């Protein structure tokens, strides 16, 4: 590899980072501007921030409950998808089931469906079929966790497959020879070795679930509404409350940042997507 001056790299990255960060910075600027200033000439530099929006959002009991719902739904969904995806990948990788490659491809087709039209059947199923007596799956957190599986589970399987494939089969076989149960092999031998891939899958499915809007907007009413649906409440015929929206957005970024930060070091190691192993 050619040797380059580190300064050039640094300058390059500062420029790229500026471009990357600008829209996020602008989101923050909007959140600390009073509504009257939004439609006046924009200044790049922030002066005299106004924190009223933050007080309003923080003081809103509904938004706090949306935040809790979002956390539960996306965490529950990410864990479920990662674990089930791991099991599925183990099955696809280690067994000679007939048609398994077709099953593998079929799982991913679930992510391709245009979401708008699936809302009606999902609504009908969740109100009339997946219901017991007075209870129905619509507007429940568990319902949303399951619905999000339609796009996250395929993604999990897709990302984890190369990782699981990459763990040498000899390792499981050696463990079996030692008399370990299949459950033990899966959880204690293979699972730990897949940790980087699992971490990445977890974070990305988490982010997808955390950011989902359309399904949540239609399939929740009172009990399981998420933060992204809270955002749309501020787009009304009497004026869009950009400041409040931006503030909520900033709030949605914080947990995502924390989760992302926690697994940052695994990310590159885990996203192998079947890259050639040396």
């Amino acid at each position, binding site marked *: 590899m050619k040797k380059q001056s580190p300064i050039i790299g640094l300058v390059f990255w500062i420029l790229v980072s500026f471009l990357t960060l600008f829209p996020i910075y602008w989101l923050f600027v909007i959140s600390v501007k009073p509504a*009257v200033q939004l439609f006046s000439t924009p200044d790049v530099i922030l002066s005299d921030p106004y924190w009223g929006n933050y007080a309003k959002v923080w003081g*809103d009991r509904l938004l706090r409950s949306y935040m809790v719902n979002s956390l539960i739904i996306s965490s529950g969904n990410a864990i479920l998808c990662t674990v089930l995806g791991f099991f599925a990948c183990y099955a696809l990788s280690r067994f000679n089931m007939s048609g398994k490659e077709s099953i593998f491809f079929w799982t991913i087709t679930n992510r391709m469906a245009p979401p708008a039209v699936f809302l009606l059947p999902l609504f009908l199923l969740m109100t009339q079929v997946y219901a017991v007596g007075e209870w129905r799956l619509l507007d429940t957190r568990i319902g949303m966790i399951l619905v999000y599986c339609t796009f996250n589970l395929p993604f999990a399987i897709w990302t984890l497959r190369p990782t699981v494939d990459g763990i040498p089969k000899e390792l499981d076989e050696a463990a079996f020879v030692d008399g370990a149960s299949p459950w033990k092999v899966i959880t204690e031998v293979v699972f730990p070795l897949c940790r980087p891939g699992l971490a990445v899958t977890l974070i990305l499915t988490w982010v997808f679930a955390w950011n989902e809007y359309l399904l949540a907007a239609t399939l929740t009413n009172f009990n399981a509404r998420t933060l992204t*649906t809270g955002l749309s409440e501020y787009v*009304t015929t009497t*004026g869009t409350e950009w400041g409040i929206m931006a503030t909520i957005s900033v709030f949605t970024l914080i947990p995502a940042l924390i989760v992302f930060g926690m697994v940052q070091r695994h990310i590159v190691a885990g996203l192998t997507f079947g890259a050639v192993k040396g």
Partner: protein
Amino acid sequence: MSFALKFGASALAMSVAATAAFADDAFWKQAAEPYQGVTLRGVTESSPPSLYIREVLAPQFEELTGIRVDVETTSWDQMFDKAIKDMEAGTGIYDMVYIEQDIIYSYLARDFLTDLTQLMEDNPDLVAPTYSEDNFTTFADYFKNEEGHLFGVPMEAFIKVYLYRKDLFEDPDIQAAFKEKTGRDLVPAATHEEYSEIAQFFTDWGKENDMELWGTTAQAHTGHVASWYEYVESVAPTFGVYNWGINADNNYAASVENGGTMNSEEAKEALTWWLSMRDIAPPESVQSTWTEVGTTFGAGRAAQGLVYGENAGWIAADETKSLVVGKVGVALPPLADGVMDEVESGEGYIGYYDGGAFGLPSTSKQKEAAALFLQYIGQNEVQPEWAVAAPRVTNTATYDDPKVQDMNEELGGYYDMLKDKGYLFAGAPAYPFHAQVRETVAPTFYSILTGDLSVSDGLDQMAAEAEAVLTDLGYRN
């Protein structure tokens, strides 16, 4: 002044405490006796009047009756979709749905709603002494069927008015400059020609004086139905093209050759005029829905414009959002010759009278309890506070309340206009296929806005498309 949006938890607690105890507490307590432990659920747009229901009226009602009311507030698109899915599937999730004036006909055609008049007649014990259908303004008529039975309790009503900047119109320098240029006095326009002249004058004035000022607003988004609405509801009628140019008495014809007016000469003139206004409006107008038009005006970027009444309130009086507080006047929209005669004879109207009501879905499982809440929000007694928090009037008596009269001053006489001139405006025509026709012709309309189609060809095409979809839907044969 305080708008409903600002009602946080603390303000809410105060307003609940401050509410004067009504004389009829006893009635509510007794009537609600059988429904203890019931939770009512409603869905509505998250507009200030709805938020007032959620944050103030619902808790008050719960305090009084023990019936809990959960109000789901969501965006405009989502609200309709959710209410329709619920009523269509018969799930019974909602006990109250927001009915915008233009969708009532669709809901009535499908028997989605409970006949409130009938419900009250059948259950005299449920009728509150403070509730009467006679209390409502004529806006309630839009929510009645042919027999005059009411299907929704009005909760907001507005007219789309002509707003102008009083401070600019009264500025002596500007007046002099205008006089010199046009030979006329600078007063709010009565005709389209006058309006154009004023708009052009202010756009030029802004340019000459290096100000961020233009002569008119335009709700001219090139990808959102708001632009189509401004044209059919607020511009076309002032040129004498009513009911979207669709002739309900003549097999729902839209094209001139079949007896409609969607592509009539007047329609083409109206659209051409409006496009010429759009061209001298602030540049953001091509991305403006009703929301941004309000913001543009509130930011002081336009000297005049047609603005929804929902927004007139905060533009004229809310200092946290508007830079033109106290500088706003209201007037009737400019008209073409002869339109006023048609209006007076009952044939036409000069603009949009919009708003909404709370209805009770037929699929609700708690109709009686919901009827109590609907009456509660329809009482004269709760109206003035509500009108102050979220400018809207649905009951005749509200106009006379001192608080509302004070506010009328602040809003440049908006309430007076609603009261005295409201009859000149009209809601959307009584079609059960609003969204369907709108969505069909809208893409063609956007093509006219972008210049890909000429006004004449575009309107011809829209008329043909409207007829085609009406045939498809089975309304036209």
